């Protein structure tokens, strides 16, 4: 499997968009027609109901990040774009998986979930549905380990992220807040 936590090819963009119908299609359409690859994508409303936040992990080998950001910024409903440096932001992802857990392995699966501080959210006769929320690299590790027991079904949300908070001794977290000075033209 691909481990994407530590991968330099991937960058996380937090894109604040107007909360209107069709905006996701505009963003996704831009990526496909300009030949950029989306690695993962998560959308949810923000605390301000006029806006949604799209967290996109982009594969920057497909195109220079600067070009992706400028083209995204040209979309009229895109309000701001923040590029999050993985080293200076808090990234989380949720994994849900149904795992084979017969009599011999059930205890081991439960133990593994405990070690990772995950949760068991459903129990069947010989299967368990488990949940883990955490940093993407931790979720990757967990996925690798439970794979050995047999994954019946699995779903990951894609990452969401927020910048690390400023405090003395930390360098500023944002590599660039697009939209303020750069503006857009069309």
């Amino acid at each position, binding site marked *: 499997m691909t481990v994407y936590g530590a991968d330099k090819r991937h960058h996380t963009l937090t894109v604040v*968009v*107007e909360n209107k*119908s*069709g905006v996701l*299609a*505009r963003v996704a*359409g*831009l990526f496909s*027609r300009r030949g950029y690859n989306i690695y993962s994508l998560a959308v949810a409303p923000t605390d301000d109901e*006029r806006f949604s936040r799209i967290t996109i992990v982009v594969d920057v080998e497909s195109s*220079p990040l*600067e*070009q992706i950001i*400028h*083209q995204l*910024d*040209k*979309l*009229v*409903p*895109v*309000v*701001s774009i923040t590029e999050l440096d993985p080293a200076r932001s808090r990234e989380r992802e949720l994994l849900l998986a149904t795992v084979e857990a017969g009599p011999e392995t059930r205890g081991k699966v439960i133990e593994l979930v405990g070690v990772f501080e995950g949760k068991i959210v459903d129990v069947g006769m010989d299967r368990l549905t488990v949940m883990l929320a955490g940093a993407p690299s931790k979720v990757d590790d967990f996925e690798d380990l439970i794979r050995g027991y047999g994954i019946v079904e699995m779903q990951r949300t894609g990452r969401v992220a927020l910048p690390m908070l400023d405090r003395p001794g930390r360098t500023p977290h944002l590599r660039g807040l697009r*939209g303020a000075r*750069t*503006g*857009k*033209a*069309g």
Partner: protein
Amino acid sequence: MELTGAQALIRSLEMQEVEVMFGLPGGAILPVYDPIIDSSIRHILVRHEQGAGHMAEGYAQATGRPGVAMVTSGPGATNVVTPLADAYMDSIPLVVVSGQVPTSAIGTDAFQESDITGITMGITKHNWLVTDGADIPRVVAEAFTVATSGRPGPVLVDVPKDVAQRPMEWYWPEPDDLDLPGYRPMTDGDPALVRQAAELILAAEKPVIYAGGGILKARAWDGLCELAERTGIPVVTTLMGRGCFPDSHPLCLGMPGMHGNYTAVTSMQRSDLLVALGSRFDDRVTGRIADFAPEAKIVHVDVDPAELNKVRRADVGIAGDCRLVIDELLAALDALGLPHSDATRGGRGGAPSDAVAGAPATTGSLAAHHPRERLIPWRAQLTEWQRTYPLVYDQPPGAGALKPQFVLETLRDATSEDTIVVAGVGQHQMFASQWWQFDHPRTWINSGGLGTMGFAVPASIGAKVGRPDRTVWAVDGDGCFQMTAQELVTASSERIPVKIAILNNAYLGMVRQWQEMFYGERYSEVYLSPDLPDYVGWAEAMGCVGIRVESTEEVAPAIDKANDIDDRPVVVDFRVDAFEKVFPMVPAGASNDEIVVDPTQREEARP
């Protein structure tokens, strides 16, 4: 005041000072056509919606104002997709209003339903589906704002039939009422970058200004002229920028690119500084990008930040409006001590003139004109190239084959210099751009980025509607003409006296040229026939005057006759040499250093 959505829509267009729109009614847009009867807006009924879109483009290019087209849902809307894509590529401000099936029917595959906002998402600057009549005035105001500001472009407003029929309370939004929180067009450039650009300009020894369509969009032609004259830097004007700097100016090198002249192409290749103003390093200009202008530093000014570093990394990339940035650049050059010269024209900083930048105050060779000492060797080199590799063709006298270049030269010399020339796409377009002398902004209209055959006839009609005071000549190919000729019916019935010169070589000429040069003279599906259709008979059937020209002696009289007709369109069928090719040519994918000049200018042809 209560209005229907349809009335509010027309009222909103009136508020935007729309004087004319181009369209064709149908089921879903019917409610909007009713208030048109009572409106001050002139509606021009086209014969195909593609014509409406290209007319709106021609109107916009000729006037600098947004073009407006109106179409019905489904096929009406899909027929305007090509003009939208064309306008998107060439940054033409266009507002297209499309009808849509009633909101209750959207998504049910209703009669004449198409997801036009989905279809046009990638070829419009933005589009809107209006679901509430109360939004109509605000959306129209937003649509015009987006279409005309920053980097201009086409927008589409999709209006469901029930939204047009239902009543709404009329209002007109204040600028602050627009709901565009993410839209912030660029204006002026970053002063620190402008200063760096000015320093590069003064340090360069082999500089070239690479001026594109953005100069016309920004109305920056006066500033460009002053910049060129004060710095003594020669100017190439791209296909989209032709006319933004006078061809008659000693500093003008003409058009670069795949069919650009040798000096324009080679000056860029050998330059040590390219000052790109409103141009976008299009592949047709750069040739193979890895080999493009290898020694040049790049100053790139564009209103669209996404154009900077997209194709070629800029040493100084300035996001901003060309007119404002050029003014800043001139001020920075002042600050760095660049003297004003006698040749310097005034006008900087004021409102742009819609007239011209006019003919140059002084004439003479490139090297003699306002020489900054540092540039003398460079300008001598350019003059040398101009002498060695002028554009050439050979028109045999008498009854030999009529050369398209001869037709264009005769046409150019027989029409006033502010004539608007509109071209389709292909050989005729390249010949026209090469052989015309463009001395005024907005006198050259063509389909550059998308390369839309069939553009010329409808675009010329739109241009003539926008500039009835000007003579409008479409230079078209026979292949192009057949794609949209039916709009001459529109022109005849609306009394729009455009003039069409068909350079009829009986072929899809540019494709034929490529097949001759790169496919071993294997001609596949390019022959059209000179006589089928009968262009003169067809023109007359459409209410135009039709004239056929088959020999050199007939050229000038036919043009004079056409120029004298001002009450209906004229179509002149020039039977030209099918084997004439456009030179110079940089083969597709090749380096600009591999430019192929006219056979008579090649090494082996020299004594």
